[in-house]
């Protein structure tokens, strides 16, 4: 218990960020029209690819002197993370492209 409290104190800024981000996430999403549910889910999904920063740090400081399981898994994490980021944003853009095409033709 003491350690948990200590951890809370040590990471109080991060915990503040969490608490505020929850409200921010709820606030930003409410009132979204049903039309945009799928693109929004897809775009949010791409943002969760932010884990890739962890992957970069992990592989960035990995020991390259021998080919270890850790290194292989780390590289795999990076590839997965990039798939999430690049694929996610690309697919969202493709969905939204269709709405835009519609608009420009009518204006």
């Amino acid at each position, binding site marked *: 218990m003491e350690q*948990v409290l200590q951890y809370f104190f040590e990471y109080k800024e*991060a915990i503040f*960020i969490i608490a505020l981000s929850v409200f921010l996430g709820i606030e930003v999403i409410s009132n979204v029209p049903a039309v945009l*549910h*799928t693109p929004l889910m897809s775009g949010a*999904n791409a*943002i969760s690819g932010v884990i890739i*920063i962890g992957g970069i740090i992990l592989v960035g400081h990995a020991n390259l002197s021998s080919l270890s399981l850790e290194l292989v898994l780390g590289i795999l994490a990076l590839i997965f993370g990039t798939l*999430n*980021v690049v694929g996610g944003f690309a697919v969202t853009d493709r969905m939204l492209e269709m709405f835009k095409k519609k608009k420009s033709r009518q204006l």
Partner: protein
Amino acid sequence: MNKVLGIVNGMEFTIGDTLLELSYLIAALLFVTGLKLLSHPRTARRGNLWAAGGMGLAMITTLLLHKNTEGEGISLANFWIILAAIGVGAAIGWIVARRVKMTAMPQLVSFYNATGGAASALVALLEYPNAVAGETGSILVTVLGLIIGAIAFSGSMIAYGKLDGKVGDIMKPFMTYLNLGLLIITLGLGTFIIFSPLQPSELIWAIYTLLALSLIYGVMFVMPIGGADMPVVISLLNAFTGIAAAMAGFIYNNQAMILGGILVGAAGMILTVLMCKAMNRSLINVIVGSFGGGVSAAAGAQGTIKEITLSDAAVLLSYSQRIVVIPGYGLAVAQAQHITQELDELLESKGVEVKYAIHPVAGRMPGHMNVLLAEADVPYEKLVEMDDINPDMPNVDVAIVVGANDVVNPAAYDDPGSPIYGMPIIDAHLAKNIIIMKRGMGKGYAGIENTLFFNDKTRMLFGDAKSSIQKLVNEIKNM
């Protein structure tokens, strides 16, 4: 670049460190702004690009400026390995995203969600040995990141398989208890790892077992959930991936990761709740109870089915004033969105008013139907949401139901025993005439009988939606 600027709390900081933190702040702001813009039709595309820009910025600055606790930057050899891995992931991600058919969009979103979960689980797995026994807080976030990321990965893969038709529903009554037991064991092992006095290096077996258990739980968790509930599940798993990424952010004390992850977690949870509301079900009900299957209370609704010939349908449509098309997933499966648009144009040229009634969960994901129809050049203004079109339904001459079933089932109003009782539906039964295009007399995704088929005003047009509508178009042209 690395000149020491000063000392704060005993830690030196440099221009590089400052720039890195600053770039994370900008990235976080871009995520928030991007998500906000994404929730308005006019600005959605820009929002997506902004969020992508934030991600790109954070990736580049991390690669160039990150230093570990010993103050060492990323060495050149590691730098190239990272670039190569990112190159591989980016190439595959881009090509698949560009080439996939619009109807396959939901499973692709599910697949990319799985990769994000896998990345989070792997990062947590690899960072675990660096933790120190007794640092309960940091082991807690590592274990949580591992469990949640792994469940998001295997769960999303099963959801992907189900949407792609590769995995069927498996539902046995005992599975609820089995899953509950599995969850308890998984969380129990996690708790043991968090509070164990042993060093992480002595608990490697435990962390790999935890990974395996979490992966199995993810599979078992999604397996019994019916296809109709997949959107809710994907949204929920999307929230999980965000939370897992935020847990990893805790490991690195990285604010951009924490904010981005939690933002997605919160947004995903809200979206999940919104979808549950659209189907009039609670989240617990979606996860624990199964849709259809065992419940057979809604049987018995029987009557005679009346078919309509193509030429009769063509005459009926041509001489109507107001027509409402109610599309469902069947339309997407048959790739009938383009030919539907052609029918729409043809009828409009004859002075018939054509609108589309979009149920919030039409298709395999909320808004999926809008994307499909937008692809087929159906103007945005013609897509009317359920709540706006229902009061108008009694004035509609013909309601054409294309590949939809549960979303027009009147049992939602009048059969308390039906599993969909209480779910909001499009009031097709109030229209003056109803034409239902269907492959055969099969049941809808929820596996329940639809009394609309036996309605006196209903005529059935059996066959593949695409070829039926094609024939209808030809018939009207020849009139």
